[in-house]
């Protein structure tokens, strides 16, 4: 058995002339909390729909938990909990009745234990008090919680959560993060799609970056950061002169303000940069090397800001 919970090969989806997902090779190790990061419209949901067998790829294929999809969907999907593009429930049923329906549809779930499992799932997402209310009266955050509860009705080896914190208040967002961490600690693999950089930084062990349908990077979070070139900042009263030196040393994206110059360290060693600055007579008041933020990493990978893919 492979040690990948999700493995895709050249997964591609075309809608008419638009390529929504372009040859994506996902490799999500078992036990990982994999942040599937990308701005709105970058193809995350479309990828997830293909992973779950809701739509047929134009090209490519994938395995979930070591089994080929969609052929083995009946064996695999009961072990996969999913939240796809927001919650979807019957408005005129209560939250609890909606969960009853989802559970009744699951041939692998035991009817005898349904009520207890439903109560536990509701409790886990903090919806017990509102369980008897009609779904249509729920706030967006409560709807989102109910969708997460539906994914937790039975123990799952893999959770595929598409933007689970959408519509949640800061408190709810924190709760979901804690929940994801707890699920991971219990041994579930989590694939968490998000357009929020902070979410990835706070809960994920691995990150895959989507940009315009392409998976432009996929690595353990620490390694992605380490691979990205750090920024060097020089505090000085001669930022112009400092910037010239930085450029000469091969730094890129050099910028200057009134009291500092900064640039991205490429192959240049920081100590050599400092030596060169001093050698050229630039007064150095301070010198720092900063690990890049995830946003910096994203800009480096895609050459543009973290905004909506068109």
């Amino acid at each position, binding site marked *: 058995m492979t040690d990948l919970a999700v493995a895709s090969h050249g997964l591609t989806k075309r809608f008419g002339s638009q390529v929504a997902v372009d040859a994506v090779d996902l490799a999500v190790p078992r036990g990982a909390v994999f942040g599937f990061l990308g701005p709105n419209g970058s193809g995350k949901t479309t990828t997830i729909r293909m992973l779950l067998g*809701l739509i047929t790829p134009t090209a490519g294929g994938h395995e979930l938990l070591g089994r080929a999809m969609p052929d083995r969907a009946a064996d695999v*999907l009961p072990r996969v909990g999913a939240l796809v593009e927001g919650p979807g*429930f019957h408005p005129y*049923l209560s939250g609890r009745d909606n969960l009853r329906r989802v559970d009744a*549809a699951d041939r*692998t779930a035991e009817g005898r234990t349904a009520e207890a499992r439903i109560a536990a799932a509701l409790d886990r997402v903090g919806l017990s008090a509102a369980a008897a209310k009609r779904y249509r009266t729920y706030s967006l955050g409560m709807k989102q919680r109910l969708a997460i509860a539906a994914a937790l009705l039975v123990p799952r080896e893999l959770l595929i959560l598409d933007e689970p914190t959408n519509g949640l208040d800061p408190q709810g967002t924190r709760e979901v993060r804690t929940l994801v961490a707890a699920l991971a600690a*219990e041994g579930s693999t989590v694939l968490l799609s998000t357009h929020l950089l902070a979410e990835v930084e706070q809960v994920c062990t691995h990150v895959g970056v989507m940009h315009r349908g392409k998976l432009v990077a996929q690595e353990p979070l620490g390694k992605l950061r380490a691979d990205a070139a750090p920024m060097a900042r020089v505090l000085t009263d001669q930022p112009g002169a400092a910037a010239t030196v930085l450029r000469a040393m091969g730094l890129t994206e050099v910028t200057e303000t009134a009291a500092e110059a900064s640039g991205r360290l490429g192959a240049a060693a920081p100590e050599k940069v400092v030596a060169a600055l001093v050698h050229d007579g630039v007064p150095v008041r301070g010198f720092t090397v900063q690990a890049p933020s995830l946003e910096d990493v994203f800009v480096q990978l895609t050459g543009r800001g973290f905004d909506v893919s068109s």
Partner: protein
Amino acid sequence: MSQVKIRRRVSSRFLASEVRLIAVRRRNQAGLAALAAVPVVIAIAMKVAAPDRTGRGQGGGPDFFSQILSNGFFVALAGIGVELTLFLPIAIAMLAGDAVAGEANQGTLRYLLTVPVGRIRLLAVKYAGIVMGAFLAPLVVATSGILAGLLLFGGGDVTTLSGTSISFGAGLLRLLGVCLYLGVCLTALGAVGLFLSTLTEQPMGATIALTMLTVASFVLGQIPQLDWLHPYLLTQHWQDFGELLRDPVSLSALQPGLLTAGAYIAVFLCAAWARFAGRDITS
């Protein structure tokens, strides 16, 4: 994490859940109440109308109105005759239009499929719900008609269309036969509806399309110049339910209707499956 053993049970839980979903829906309850109200309205209208005035049969079907005054039994048949051209088809269209398109519209379809519910199993359960509705609807009309008729006009031996007389109990059996026959007809209509419901994410669209198809089918069936088309029309033999009120009952007279229904069921269930089995679920 140890591998969870997956065992698939043969279980009626999903079907029971589907029935419950249909039953608790206010709209469906209201629809059923409307179906039940029509025979009551007919009975009251006949009671207050002058005794010498009698109504007309509908859509070329047998005329049961003239007999209501002498026997409440015929309120049920008159009610069925009136509702067969529009009310009953609309009821089935509401149910069938909602089947797949309703789940798609609410976003519940993607969650059912990822549970996972196999697509064929989903269609089967959805169709089972429609079939139950198709048999329940005429039964509700008949029951309401019998109760209203007995209350306002009393019962008694039933005069068949052949002029013979049968007991009230035997009449009820014939009425049950009528309901079953129409149940099969409406089941076929439901198969068309299920197919339409796989084409769209708008349940109302499927409902309206099916209602319009039914009305069009009735209209085309009335045009003599199109008699070459008539054997293919779903609604062509619906009025044959009157054959069950003859003495003796000729079951062979019901055959064309049953065969037409069977053909429609087979064709449109296959079409629904062909359409739904590989469809991209982007709702």
